[in-house]
């Protein structure tokens, strides 16, 4: 196992990721704000925790989940496993049921472990004074990603145009925005952007490329992309929908209380 070397490489990569951010913050603090940072030691300790945390997290993913996830994506999309006869030019969409199911479950599970989403959920619970539960928000987002990725794999199998789905998705989001409580809109839009980072992207990309290179008639260069777009769109719909349902139920409970 050569992993001390790999660990150091991941550490340096994370450091390189953090440095421009630290430089921006320190530069503006010294040149523009010109006031000492409050609790400098605590802040520094926090940055060191984040640096070590991300390093271990990524290294662990590379050791355990990515190889296995990629292997499974390959095995599940393998024509021998799907049982498509050789030389078939169009694959029936329902031959890939296991792939959709895998896409949905892995999308759900990886989103639940996504560090950026955890961060936003913690903040949202704090700001809303507990009206929004961190875990509830994360579950809603995960369900959205899960549905989005499953639909995305279906799109790759059937070869329909990506932009049609995305544009219909936008229209749904716009309609929901009109009716959703104002307080949730910013958070819902944000949750679309945070779902896809460290954990989800590599696994989902492997699945997309695996599918596009094995489904007859698909070109991995053209059809392998787009899953991330699905994974960023559907959480918005899910979070808006979740709050709409919650509001509708509380309104109904209230009106039921009045009539009694």
């Amino acid at each position, binding site marked *: 196992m050569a992993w001390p070397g790999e660990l150091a490489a991941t550490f340096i990569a994370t450091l390189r990721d953090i440095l421009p*951010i630290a430089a921006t913050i320190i530069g503006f603090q010294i040149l523009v704000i010109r006031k000492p940072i409050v609790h400098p030691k605590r802040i520094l300790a926090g940055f060191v*925790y984040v640096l070590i945390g991300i390093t271990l*997290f990524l290294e662990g993913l590379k050791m355990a989940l990515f190889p296995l996830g990629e292997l499974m994506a390959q095995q599940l999309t393998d024509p021998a496993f799907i049982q498509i006869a050789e030389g078939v030019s169009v694959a029936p969409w329902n031959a890939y049921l296991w792939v959709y199911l895998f896409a949905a479950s892995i999308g759900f599970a990886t989103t639940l472990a996504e560090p950026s989403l*955890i961060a936003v959920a913690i903040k949202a619970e704090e700001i809303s004074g507990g009206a929004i539960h961190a875990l509830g928000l994360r579950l809603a987002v995960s369900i959205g990603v899960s549905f989005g990725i499953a639909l995305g794999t279906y799109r790759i199998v059937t070869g329909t145009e990506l932009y049609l789905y995305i544009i219909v998705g936008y229209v749904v989001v716009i309609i929901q925005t009109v009716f959703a409580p104002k307080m949730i809109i910013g958070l819902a839009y944000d949750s679309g952007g945070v779902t896809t980072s460290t954990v989800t992207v590599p696994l989902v990309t492997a699945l997309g490329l695996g599918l596009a290179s094995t489904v007859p008639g698909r070109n991995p260069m053209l059809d392998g992309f787009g899953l991330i777009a699905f994974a960023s769109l559907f959480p918005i719909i899910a979070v808006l929908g979740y709050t709409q349902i919650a509001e509708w139920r509380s309104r109904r409970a209230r009106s039921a209380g009045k009539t009694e």
Partner: protein
Amino acid sequence: MTPIRNRFIRQLFASTLDLLPIIAVVLIFQILVVRQPIPDVLNLVAGTLLVILGLTLFVQGLELGLFPIGETMAHAFARKGSVLWLLIFAFSLGFATTVAEPALIAVAGEAAKIAAQGGMIEASDEARASYALGLRLTVAFSVGLAIVIGVLRIIRGWPLHYLIISGYCGIVLMTLFAPEEIIGIAYDSGGVTTSTITVPLVTALGVGLATSIKGRNAMVDGFGLIAFASLTPMIFVMAYGMFI
């Protein structure tokens, strides 16, 4: 020391719970569907432990470092009252965090390959490298711009949904005119720009600004910066595909 240690243990437990679904999905599919032995069980166990420990440290670091610094800087800028400096800071933060983002570097490389294959640029290493670099700078610029617009919105109190909906319309319009090869990559690039370090910082910045500016509500106005940062790259990448 004890409260810190207790918090660490509680977080360790929470991180383990966060990881459980992934492990369950992988194991269930491996055993029931693929029906092949798991290669390298030792690495799987060791890796999972590292992931749990890493996630725990990250969440601790969030509350100690990233959230407080983002918020105190937002307060400091709000007290200083210089909108120009705040906007310059917003742009630098967006640009600096994106240009070195590993996921973006990977996507830009892929895009250059596709462009060369489609005959949009020469099939030489040099042409590909300059195409990829141009794309990265474009995306980093668009994220910087996104944070600037988002911060301006918080200061002025513009309603978020009008801006987002016009962004969507921009994307739809660009999709009609952009070369087909670039569309998938453009859509994906919106999702990859926001990294694990950027998200907490930018969220804290937005929430901090909304709390320190009079008449703004942290919940209504504080969120939305990330949404801009995932919208503008799509528009700019399609524009890049059209003009290069």
